[in-house]
């Protein structure tokens, strides 16, 4: 495994705050290590059945911080306006004086569009630092210290908070966004013709079709292909195409060839190319052992953000094949065509890719969203999960409309948000499992947990809509949106554990129904997201993202009424990307970032406990934005145990 594999091994982020032990002495058996057969059937799911289960990957040793700031206490909002002096003491106060304002004009000029390779490298370094930092954090804020380095610098060098804009803090993203929305107010009623991205995203997911026998339609198809805002390619080190979001092999073969040539040119020079800008699009490369992944985006994400997306696609491939099995295939035959063993997983890769193109808060923040429930209700559900837990269960999840309701897990194994993202994608974006109309038993590798072996996942869906009060078996197939569906997901290392987990599901459902929890869950799903003005009456805020860093979870209000439809959603996400990058890029010195545009004003605010991104209308003042942000933080403080799963059901 090449150098950059460490992230995959160690990126197990905690879910919940329970400390983990890392000795690995009581590892659960992971069934079916792959890859010890001969090359011929190296893509089979299990071959080395006689071998002992593979060891879990090494886990980072935990430096449990001596004291985690008590959640409630540290959310105290001070009235101070001076900046914090103590590194270990996060301030959660936000005052106007702390806010750095970024106007559109500065952005346009300050940004170098073709971020030099030096900058790219910085981005990626900051990205990986953050990745590892989080993974080591064990749920404790202070352990993520690597990711705060820039922030801490900024505090020491605090005057720059208010003064000059570091050029690198403004990103091509903001520029691109500004360019796209030149004279529109995208969050109000916009004539869509004037907005390229809004217009194009409507067709972003249309099929391109394939080249006909004579190649006569090739030109037309290529035109359509070129209008896509975003492309993802995966190719093998030897240049074989493995995946492309748009266009079939024939259509894109030239482009794959070019990409391969460029990549190998730089690899040959021992100076791998990480990204470049051409034709208004940002190209970002990620090399992962035998695979090269390429993202091409006109949506203005930063390199680090695009690389996170590529990492996720890579994790999906590992989830299908496991790392040793994939490596084995390539070491046996470097020209292996990975399409065959990956057959049928295009829908999963597409699901991820399209999520990134639409803009996924979950991916942007590397965090998960939970269903908001009363603390006592959540506890009742957790207790039920623990009561019915069957002996071979590793993880159990209740997921509603893409949001987590509850988790049951062993004390020493946390859940990696990246793994959960893969599961959610499989359940809610790809149709196969949901539309199957039955229960499912799915072998999969959760690379964040252990990228060398398979686990087995029991999945059962329920419709939660009123009209369908019948049991799980009666769920109408392929009907109903994903928004009213509830999935019970039970994961075990036991290949033959289906009936055991099925029994657990039956017991769980019966008890949840008897103790009223099922109704509670269903009504919470039906209620959906609260709007911003429900949360903070009278606020100027139109939307926000709040990430609790310790819990690796985020919460947000509904997109309605301001961000209706794909185009507006996308634009909002672009803004969030920009804000995110402005406080995360290595060169960012900012703890609070304030952006003003013709279409929106926005604010990003980072502390060791949380990240908060707020968006208001174009006329909102800095003070009202700051006030809104403070009130969100107050609301979270009150609701913390409702909007987040703190700990979950741990055994």
């Amino acid at each position, binding site marked *: 495994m090449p150098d950059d594999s460490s992230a995959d091994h160690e990126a197990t982020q905690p879910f919940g705050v329970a400390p983990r032990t890392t000795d690995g002495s009581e590892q659960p058996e992971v069934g079916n290590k792959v890859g010890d057969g001969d090359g011929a059937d190296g893509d089979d799911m299990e071959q080395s059945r006689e071998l002992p289960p593979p060891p879990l990957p090494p886990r980072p040793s935990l430096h449990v911080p001596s004291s985690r700031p008590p959640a409630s206490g540290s959310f105290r909002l001070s009235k101070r306006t001076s900046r914090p002096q103590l590194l270990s003491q996060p301030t959660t106060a936000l005052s106007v004086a702390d806010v750095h304002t970024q106007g559109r004009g500065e952005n346009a000029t300050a940004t170098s569009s073709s971020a030099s390779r030096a900058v790219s490298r910085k981005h990626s370094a900051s990205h990986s630092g953050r990745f590892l930092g989080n993974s080591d954090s064990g749920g404790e804020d202070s352990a993520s210290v690597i990711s705060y380095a820039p922030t801490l610098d900024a505090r020491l060098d605090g005057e720059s908070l208010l003064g000059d804009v570091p050029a690198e803090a403004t990103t091509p993203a903001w520029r691109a966004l500004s360019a796209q929305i030149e004279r529109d107010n995208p969050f109000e009623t916009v004539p869509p013709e004037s907005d390229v991205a809004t217009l194009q995203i409507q067709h972003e997911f249309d099929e391109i079709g394939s080249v006909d026998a004579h190649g006569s339609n090739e030109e037309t198809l290529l035109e359509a292909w070129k209008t896509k805002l975003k492309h993802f390619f995966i190719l093998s080190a030897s240049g074989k195409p493995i995946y492309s979001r748009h266009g079939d092999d024939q259509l894109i073969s030239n482009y794959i060839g070019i990409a391969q040539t460029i990549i190998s040119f730089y690899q040959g020079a021992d100076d791998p190319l990480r990204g470049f800008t051409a034709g208004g699009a940002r190209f970002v490369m990620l090399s992962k052992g035998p695979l090269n992944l390429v993202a091409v985006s006109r949506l203005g994400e930063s390199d680090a953000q695009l690389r996170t997306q590529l990492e996720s696609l890579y994790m999906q491939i590992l989830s299908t094949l496991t790392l040793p099995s994939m490596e084995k295939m390539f070491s046996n035959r470097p020209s292996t065509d990975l399409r065959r063993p990956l057959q049928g997983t295009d829908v999963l890769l597409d699901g991820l890719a399209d999520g990134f193109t639409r803009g996924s808060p979950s991916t942007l923040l590397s965090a998960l969203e939970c269903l908001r429930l009363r603390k006592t209700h959540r506890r009742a559900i957790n207790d039920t999960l623990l009561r019915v837990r069957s002996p071979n269960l590793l993880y159990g999840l209740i997921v509603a409309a893409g949001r987590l309701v509850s988790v049951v897990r062993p004390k020493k194994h946390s859940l990696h948000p990246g793994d959960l993202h893969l599961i959610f994608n499989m359940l809610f974006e790809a149709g196969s499992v949901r539309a199957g109309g*039955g229960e499912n038993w799915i072998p999969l590798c959760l690379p964040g947990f252990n990228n060398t072996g398979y686990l087995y996942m029991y999945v059962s869906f329920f419709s939660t809509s009123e009209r369908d009060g019948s*049991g799980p078996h009666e769920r*109408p197939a392929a009907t109903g949106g994903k928004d009213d569906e509830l999935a019970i997901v039970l994961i075990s290392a036991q290949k033959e554990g289906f009936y055991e987990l099925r*029994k657990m599901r039956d017991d769980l459902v019966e008890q949840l129904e008897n103790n009223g929890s099922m109704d509670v869950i269903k009504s919470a799903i039906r209620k959906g997201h609260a709007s911003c003005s429900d949360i903070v009456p009278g606020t100027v805020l139109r939307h926000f993202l709040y990430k609790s860093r310790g819990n690796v979870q985020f919460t947000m209000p509904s997109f309605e009424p301001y961000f209706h439809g794909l185009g507006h959603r996308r634009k909002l996400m672009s803004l969030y990307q920009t804000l995110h990058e402005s406080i995360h890029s290595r060169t960012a010195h900012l703890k609070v970032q304030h952006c003003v545009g013709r279409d929106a004003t926005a604010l990003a605010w980072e502390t060791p406990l949380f990240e908060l991104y707020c968006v208001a209308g174009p006329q909102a003042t800095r003070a009202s934005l700051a006030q809104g942000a403070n009130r969100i933080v107050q609301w979270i403080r009150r609701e913390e145990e409702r909007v987040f799963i703190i700990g979950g059901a741990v055994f």
Partner: protein
Amino acid sequence: MAARMQQGGRPGGARFAQFKLVLLGESAVGKSSLVLRFVKDQFDDYRESTIGAAFLTQTIALDDQTTVKFEIWDTAGQERYKSLAPMYYRNANCAVVVYDITQASSLDKAKSWVKELQRQANENIIIALAGNKADLVAEQPDKRAVQTADAEAYARESNLLFFETSAKTAENVKELFTAIAKKLPIEQASQRGMRGPAGRPGGVDLGNRQEAGSAGGGPGGCNC
């Protein structure tokens, strides 16, 4: 749950038996579509490839005294899942091996499944061969790649039930499953205390979910 409902509702003298059925065949021949037609009477023109395996149940009445419940494993046809198949067929009482009548190669694959079943599965397993997508050749006869007579001859010599089906139009779908049910040893299975037809545990259970739970995951000795 369905099983419990079934149990209570039977008058004395009625026969109720439960059997495990597995579907095998190349990817995209229509296994999931056949099951969905049988279980929900639905069909999707576009259906994503199965990931892993899906488990569904369906109960049919053979006559007003006899009810058969199928516990159906719809397996994934993709190559990489091949080695998991024994887990699903090892305990099965019956199997439907599906090919696509417009794809000759899919019959070859079906034949290799039949061979594997006859070698490795329960020795009394009832196997049905289903040539699916019959609707396609009804419209365009030149699309047919496997002649009915050829497949029928193969089925006869291999002792298989045989149907040409269409999940899309429902043609022969109910018939297929009913024919299988009629060949199953209902008499044996519905006598309390009997073991499965092959004398193995787990092949048949009498609606007792606990029993299904302990036996169904495959016999303990499975080392696949």
